[in-house]
C-alpha cells in the first residue's frame, strides 16, 4: 500500500488556470511596449541557391522603416541549432530550403512593414534541389552541408540475429512508411525583444526552451550569457514545434541595432512553413518468432529525411533506434538507420521523437504475428512484455517501475466492458 499523499495525485486546479479563463494571460503577441517596432523576415522562394544579390536599398529608404538587416549585421555567430549548429540566423553562404531567412525588417507599423518587404528583391543562382532520400545519396547529387548528404547513420546490434532467424518458426516481413506532419499548435510563433531597465537584452517568446534560447541569442550578438534574459511567455501549444529558435534571434538582432522593442508575430503560414516537421520514415522490418509467439529476432532498417537542417534529427534517429523493438524482450536484434539532408522542410522534434513512427512498425509486426499464429493480440504482447529484470537491446536491465503488463490487462478489462 502506497503512502497516502495529501497533494500528490489530486486534481488540483492549474496554477495558471485562473488567468487563462479570465483571458488575462499574456502570450507573446499580447505584449506591447512604447516605441515598439514590428518585425518580419524576408524569406527565400527557392529551395537551394546562392544569393547573387540582395536589394535592400528601397526598403531601407522607406519612411517608417527603422532597420533592414542581412547577415553582415550579425555581430556574433551566425549559426544556431540545438544539437548541431548548422542553421543560419540570416543566410550567408547559401539557401537550403524554401523559406530560408535572408533579411529582417523592423518598421513603425505593420502596414509599413508589409510595404517594405514588398520592396526587397533578390537574385538567385539556383542549385539543383534534392527532395528525395534516394537522390540525396547519389554520387553526383549536390551536397547540402559539408561533405556528405548523410546526416546520421546508426547501428544497433545484440545477440546473433542471423542464427536466430534460422531457428524461427515464423518470420514476418513488412515495409512501413509514415508521413510528414505538423504540430499545428494554435498559437503561431511570436516574441518581443527589448532592452530592460538594466540594459539587459530581453526576449519574451513563445518557447519550450528559454535557457537554450538565451544561449543562442547571446552567441548571435556576441554577448555574455548573463547579458541576455529570455522569458517564456505563456505558450499556446508547442508539441516539440517550439524547441527550435523561431523569432528569438531575429527579434533580438533588430532590437540590438534599433535599441527599440521589436515584436514579431508569425502568420499561420510562415509558422507552419519554417517550424520543424515530423520526420517521415520508411521502416523495413523482419520479425522472427516461435510457433507459440515468443519473439526471437528482429531486423529493422530505418530511412528518413531530416530536411534542410539538423534540428532535433540526431535525437530522433537515436530514440527511434532504441525503441524500434517496442516494449518486448527480443534477444537478437539488428537495426540500422540512415538520415539524410535534403532541401525539404526541416524535420525535428514532434511529440514522440520518432517513437510514433517505429510504433507503427513494431505494433504492425506484433498484430501480423498474432494473426498468423491465431493468438489474441493482447496475449502475444503479455507473453513478450518487458517486466522487471528484462534485458533491453542496449544491454540495460530493467530494475523497477515496469507496469507494461498491467496496462495490457487493465486496457483489456476496460475494453471488454465498454467496447461493443
Amino acid at each position, binding site marked *: 500500500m502506497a503512502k497516502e499523499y495529501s497533494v500528490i495525485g489530486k486534481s488540483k486546479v492549474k496554477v495558471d488556470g485562473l488567468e487563462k479563463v479570465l483571458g488575462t494571460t499574456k502570450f507573446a503577441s499580447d505584449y506591447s511596449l512604447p516605441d515598439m517596432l514590428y518585425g518580419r523576415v524576408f524569406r527565400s522562394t527557392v529551395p537551394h541557391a546562392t544569393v547573387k544579390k540582395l536589394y535592400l536599398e528601397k526598403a531601407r529608404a522607406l519612411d517608417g522603416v527603422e532597420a533592414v538587416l542581412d547577415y553582415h549585421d550579425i555581430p556574433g555567430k551566425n549559426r544556431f541549432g540545438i544539437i548541431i549548429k548548422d542553421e543560419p540566423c540570416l543566410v550567408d553562404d547559401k539557401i537550403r530550403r524554401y523559406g530560408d531567412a535572408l533579411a529582417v525588417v523592423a518598421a513603425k507599423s505593420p502596414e509599413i512593414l508589409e510595404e517594405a518587404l514588398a520592396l526587397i528583391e533578390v537574385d538567385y543562382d539556383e542549385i539543383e534541389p534534392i527532395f528525395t532520400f534516394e537522390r540525396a545519396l547519389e554520387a553526383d547529387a549536390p551536397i547540402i552541408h559539408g561533405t556528405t548528404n548523410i546526416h546520421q547513420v546508426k547501428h544497433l546490434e545484440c545477440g546473433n540475429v542471423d542464427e536466430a532467424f534460422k531457428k524461427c518458426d515464423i518470420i514476418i516481413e513488412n515495409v512501413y512508411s509514415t508521413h510528414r506532419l505538423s504540430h*499545428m499548435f494554435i498559437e503561431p510563433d511570436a516574441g518581443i525583444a527589448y532592452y530592460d531597465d538594466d540594459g539587459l537584452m530581453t526576449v519574451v517568446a513563445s518557447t*519550450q*526552451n528559454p535557457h537554450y534560447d538565451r544561449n543562442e541569442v547571446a552567441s548571435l550578438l556576441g554577448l555574455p550569457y548573463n547579458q541576455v534574459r529570455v522569458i517564456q511567455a505563456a505558450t499556446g501549444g508547442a508539441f516539440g514545434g517550439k524547441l527550435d529558435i523561431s523569432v528569438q534571434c531575429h527579434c533580438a538582432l533588430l532590437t540590438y541595432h534599433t535599441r527599440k522593442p521589436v515584436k514579431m508575430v508569425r502568420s499561420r503560414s510562415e509558422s507552419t512553413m519554417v517550424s520543424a516537421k515530423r520526420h517521415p520514415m520508411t521502416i523495413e522490418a523482419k520479425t522472427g518468432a516461435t510457433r507459440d509467439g515468443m519473439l526471437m529476432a528482429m531486423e529493422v532498417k530505418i530511412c528518413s529525411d531530416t530536411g534542410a537542417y539538423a534540428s532535433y534529427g540526431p535525437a530522433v534517429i537515436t530514440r527511434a533506434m532504441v525503441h524500434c523493438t*517496442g516494449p518486448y524482450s527480443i534477444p537478437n536484434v539488428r537495426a540500422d538507420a540512415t538520415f539524410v539532408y535534403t532541401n525539404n522542410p526541416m524535420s525535428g522534434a514532434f511529440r*514522440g521523437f520518432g517513437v510514433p513512427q517505429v510504433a507503427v512498425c513494431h505494433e504492425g509486426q506484433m498484430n501480423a504475428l498474432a494473426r498468423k499464429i491465431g493468438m489474441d493480440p493482447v496475449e502475444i504482447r503479455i507473453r513478450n512484455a518487458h517486466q522487471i529484470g528484462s534485458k533491453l537491446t542496449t544491454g540495460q536491465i530493467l530494475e523497477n517501475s515496469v507496469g*507494461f503488463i498491467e496496462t495490457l490487462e487493465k486496457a483489456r478489462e476496460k475494453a471488454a466492458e465498454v467496447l461493443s
Partner: protein
Amino acid sequence: MKKRGKGVGSMWYGIGNTGLPNPAAAFVEVLGDGTANLMFGAADIGQGSGTAMAQLAAEALGITYEKVRVTWGDTRVTPDGGATSASRQTLITGNAVLKACEQAKGTLADVAAAYLGCQPEELDFSNNMVTKDGDATVTMTYHTLMAEMKTAGKMAVGAGYYNPTTTTLDPEDMSGIPYEVYSYATTICEVEVDTETGEVDVLKVVSAHDVGQTINQSMVEGQIEGGVVMGQGFVLMEEIEVSDKDGSIKNPIFSKYIIPSNLDVPEIYPILVESEGGPGPFGAKGVGEPALIPIIPAIVAAIEDALDVRFTKLPIFPKDIVAAVKEKETDADNGVLN
C-alpha cells in the same frame, strides 16, 4: 457498408534525452508566513509542469498546494531546466524540486526537532503542520516553526538539480543505459469504417498508461485525451504536402491541414496505472509523449480488423480505404487469397 473493427497498440517511452546528460535545477525558499517561492527553468507549454511542480513542493514541504508560488522559464530568475521535451520535466525538474525542498526542509527539521524535543528524522511535515511520527501530541504549526526560524536566524532555502542516470551509448552497437526509466502504455480502440466512402469513425478508445505515480489526475487524463485525438489526426487526417518543384509546404494553414474537430472525437477512457520503485519524484514518470503513441497503431489495427486488409503505409485517408477495399474485391474476383 459499415464495418466495425477493434485494434490494440502498445508502446514504451524512455524518459529524458537519449544517453545524454540532461539535468534541470530548482530553487526554493520557505517564507516567514509558511508560504513558499519555487523557481525552476522548465517551460510550461500548457501540459501543466508548473502545477505538477507546485504539487511536488507542497507535498515535500508539508504545506498546502495554495501556499506554493511558482515562477518558471525566466533566465534571470530561474535556473536552467533544459528543454520541455522528451517527457522529461516531471522526472527531472520534479526531482530537482524535491532536492531543493529537502535542503530547505533540512533546516526546518533541525529547528522543529529542537523545539519539539525529538530527532529531525522523526518528523512528518504535512498540511502546514509538523508532527512527530506516531505521536500526534508532539506537533507544531508551520506558523510557529517559521517564528522559531526567525528567532534562530535561519533561512529555509534550497537549491537542487537532478541529472538522470544514463550512459553514452556505444558508437558500434548502441549498448549502454539510454534512459533512467520508461513509461509504458496500451490502447485498445474500436472503429467503424464506411467501405464505400472510406470514412472512419473512431468510436471508443481505452488507453492505459503506466505513469509510475500520478501527480495530478485531471492533468494526466487531459494529456491522454489530447494525445488520443492528435493520434487520430495522425492516422486519418493530417499530412504535410511538399511541392516537388520548390520544396514549399502546400498546405500550411488550418483549412488545408486538417486536424480533428470536436465532432470527430471518440469516447475516451483513460486508465492510470501506477508502478513502484521508479527514480522519479514519488515514482512519477512522464506521459506527454506516451499519450500520443499507442493510439496510432491501435487505429491502424482496428481498420485492418474491420476490413481484413493490411495497412503498412500512413496516413490512411478515405481514398486509401476505398482503394484497399476495391483491391480486395478485385483480388477476390480473380481468385487471389488474401
